[in-house]
């Protein structure tokens, strides 16, 4: 028996061979493939270079309290996942099922407050004249580039947990939850490992695998230091917000039903409704960066979305089981960073793998992880270093040869049109999708930015009304978004205490944010004067957890409400927010 130390452990560097940052689908794909490869080396196991005599030492650090706490309602064709698991045992994964019925639905505006262009208003009238029921028109077909009918529905939290258990049981990788990584350890332009938040432990490794998503501090820091490839930029994002709902007994939708929706609550907002096994559904929306409003209240929009008659017929009487939000990097290949360098490789959403045309990201992320694992095994077997050249010729080259690259190129220009307006956007998306990227709408020189409140609400809410709302909300310490939506004609939400509840109750009932009380704020407003001079303070209005509130000039941040979606970071037009590594965040395994 070893005696216990009498003081706090000394902080000294840890040595490993491979250190991964973040456990999402990309890292799950990486570790699943890597540990399988290591197991298959029967009789001649690969040897650790950091600890000779042992198998390679593979560590993965995850910020959240558990590897199950991801946020996404996933419907996926699952090509890459099925390549890894040809007989994917869906029955072993809670909330997983095959897609049985898939519909693309155009939602009309039942309340008259949606900002629809004239052509859409006309379309609404025509459809109503033809007797479209429940204010939703099921399109006669779902374009090939959008369909997922041969795929399956997952809860990302449950899927992560399932993969994580198998990886851990192999004994060949360690996944450490509740352990955020603050930055990459960069020495002489080479990544030599990572620094853990908290006690500042350096974990030195020959290869750092960066899979920390769209707002991860390691990925962002690498982009700052290494720069982005010429012509690449990250400027398209969305807030994804969802509820997991226990459907009422009256609901007869079979499991595997999928609705993709367009048109409501705002024409730019896409929605989804997936039915899991056990009469449970995922219902949510994506609020994109090219929605001009500076009061982008995703939660209120989500509540109007679930009450749309087309969906409400299935949801009325249901109960919220959990709730979640995350931001999505939607720049796709255009926002791809340097995929590898000396000592590091990027995988998953943060590597620009999300396909905005097909509305798919999990399967693509998984593929990037498996491609990197195959490359790593090759490099290991050949006894080579994890240099940029070796990673480029084995990992990056694999990616360039795969369907991921081919489809990313098609998707790259698919959303140019939305920078010009919603109808142009839909036309551009359709053209790019149907012609496999050969025909597309050119992107304007200047990207679309959020308008000033006064300009956005011209004709609907007067300047004096906005000023009164500002004063009242400042006095009450509230964001503007609910009051602005009321003023713009959106009906009040009649809370039922089950499915329609206040934003803060949604956090309590379904998100259950966990935040250690002894950690510093991870959202930091850099220059107070910049915040004080800021006119619209979009950070307050976009905040998914209402963790950012009006303060005395500089917004106030409450880390016990933050869901770590990162929307404040990418919505600040003045780049005056730092989003640091921190433990905690959303605490639900059903998302």
């Amino acid at each position, binding site marked *: *028996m070893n005696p216990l130390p009498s003081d706090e452990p000394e902080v000294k560097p840890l040595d490993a061979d491979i250190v991964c940052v973040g456990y999402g689908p990309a890292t799950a794909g990486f570790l699943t493939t890597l540990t399988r490869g290591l197991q298959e080396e029967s009789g001649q196991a690969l040897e650790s270079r950091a600890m000779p005599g042992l198998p390679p030492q593979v560590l993965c650090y995850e910020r959240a309290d558990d590897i199950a706490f991801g946020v996404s309602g996933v419907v996926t064709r699952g090509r890459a996942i099925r390549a890894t698991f040809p007989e994917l045992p869906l029955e072993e994964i809670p909330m997983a099922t095959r897609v049985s019925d898939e519909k693309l639905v155009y939602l009309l505006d039942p309340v008259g407050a949606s900002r629809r262009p004239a052509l859409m208003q006309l379309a609404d009238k025509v459809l109503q004249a033809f007797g479209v029921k429940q204010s939703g028109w099921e399109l006669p077909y779902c374009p090939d580039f959008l369909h997922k009918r041969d795929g399956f529905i997952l809860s990302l939290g449950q899927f992560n947990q399932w993969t994580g258990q198998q990886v851990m049981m192999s004994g060949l990788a360690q996944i450490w939850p*509740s352990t955020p990584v603050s930055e990459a350890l960069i020495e002489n332009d080479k990544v030599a490992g990572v620094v853990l938040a908290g006690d500042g432990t350096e974990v030195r490794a020959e290869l750092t695998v960066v899979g920390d998503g769209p707002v991860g501090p390691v990925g962002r820091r690498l982009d700052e230091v290494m720069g982005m490839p010429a012509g690449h930029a990250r400027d398209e994002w969305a807030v994804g917000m969802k509820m997991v709902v226990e459907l009422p007994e009256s609901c007869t939708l079979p499991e595997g039903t999928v609705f993709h929706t367009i048109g409501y609550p705002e024409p730019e907002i896409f929605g989804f409704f997936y039915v899991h096994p056990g009469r449970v559904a995922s219902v949510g929306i994506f609020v994109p960066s090219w929605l001009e409003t500076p009061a982008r209240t995703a939660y209120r929009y989500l509540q109007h979305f679930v009450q749309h008659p087309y969906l409400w017929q299935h949801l009325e009487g249901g109960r919220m089981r959990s709730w979640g939000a995350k931001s999505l990097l939607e720049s796709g290949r255009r926002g791809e960073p340097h995929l590898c360098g000396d000592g590091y490789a990027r995988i998953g959403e943060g590597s620009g793998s999300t396909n905005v045309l097909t509305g798919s990201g999990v399967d693509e992320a998984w593929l990037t992880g498996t491609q990197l694992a195959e490359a790593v095994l090759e490099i290991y077997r050949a006894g080579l270093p994890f240099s940029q050249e070796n990673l480029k010729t084995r990992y990056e080259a694999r990616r360039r040869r795969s369907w991921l690259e081919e489809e990313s190129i098609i998707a790259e220009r698919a959303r140019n049109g939305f920078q010009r307006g919603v109808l142009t956007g839909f036309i551009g998306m359709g053209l790019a999708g149907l012609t496999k990227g050969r025909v597309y709408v050119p992107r304007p020189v200047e990207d679309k930015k959020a308008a000033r409140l006064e300009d956005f609400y011209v004709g609907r809410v007067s300047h004096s009304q906005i000023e009164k709302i500002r004063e009242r909300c400042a006095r009450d310490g509230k964001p503007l978004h609910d009051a602005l939506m009321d003023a713009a004609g959106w009906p009040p939400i009649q809370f039922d205490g089950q499915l329609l509840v206040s934003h803060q109750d949604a956090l309590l*009932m379904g998100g259950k944010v966990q935040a250690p009380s002894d950690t510093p704020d991870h959202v930091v407003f850099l220059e107070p004067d910049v915040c004080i001079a800021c006119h619209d303070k979009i950070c307050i209005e976009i905040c998914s957890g209402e963790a950012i509130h009006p303060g005395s000039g500089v917004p106030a941040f409450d880390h016990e409400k933050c869901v770590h979606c990162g929307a404040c970071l990418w919505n600040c037009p003045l780049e005056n927010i730092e989003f640091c590594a921190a433990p905690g965040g959303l605490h639900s395994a059903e998302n």
Partner: protein
Amino acid sequence: MPYQIIVCGGLAPDPLQTLEPVTTPAGPGLKNELMLPAVFDPWAGHALYEAANLAKNVPGSVIKVVSIAPKAKLQQVMMTVAQKLPFELVPLDGPGGGFTDSASVATALADAIAAIPGLDKSQMLLFGGWESATRGAGVVMQMVGEKLGITEQFLAVDELKVDESGALIIKERVEGGRHQVSKCAAPPAVLAWATGNLPEPSNHPQTGMANMRAMMPALQKAKAAALTSTLSYASVALPAVTRQTKIVKDVPAAQIAQELADWIKQ
């Protein structure tokens, strides 16, 4: 005198998740039980943090955690718990949902403790939660103590001090909302903790890495806990939770308090 502190602690489904009792072929259980995130039992957590504090103040002391839980789950939870303080794990692979017979659990724990090599009972303190988060029977620690022949037993412990002579001064909860302070000359003793006073320690990755070097092989060799039960359950339900949301504006605090009081009285 250094202590050999044995902490009994199982896992509990994360209480912040949506828990739903269902009937399974093996009896009552929770829906998706194996896929629900788990946590170290919060009651046993108090015992563990108190054990760490005691061991830190008495050089040479060691902590061993004996835990019955599904092996895969135990491994996952230990990735977090192992970062908080140094200890060795004695894992037993068994059900962790709480629908088990207390006597059977106590027998498995006592057998595992008795089999720990080099265990010196004269230095042994047996810690655990007074109850468990999965089922608050409050009897397991007593039975483990009895099976190991430890007659000094303290239940619902809130505080432990060691005086100059090395005697243990133990504060227990007793009936009527009172405390009882006892003096125990020396180990061995059973201390089943109610709350303790210590917060959850912060994570130390170094500690975690050091712990896991021994835990991983131990987990791979974990023996199955042979739990037998003759219990049958007439019905199983979670405690009823009522949530009523009401939006009020410009209402004085006193009026809100009165409304709450009236609501609670209903």
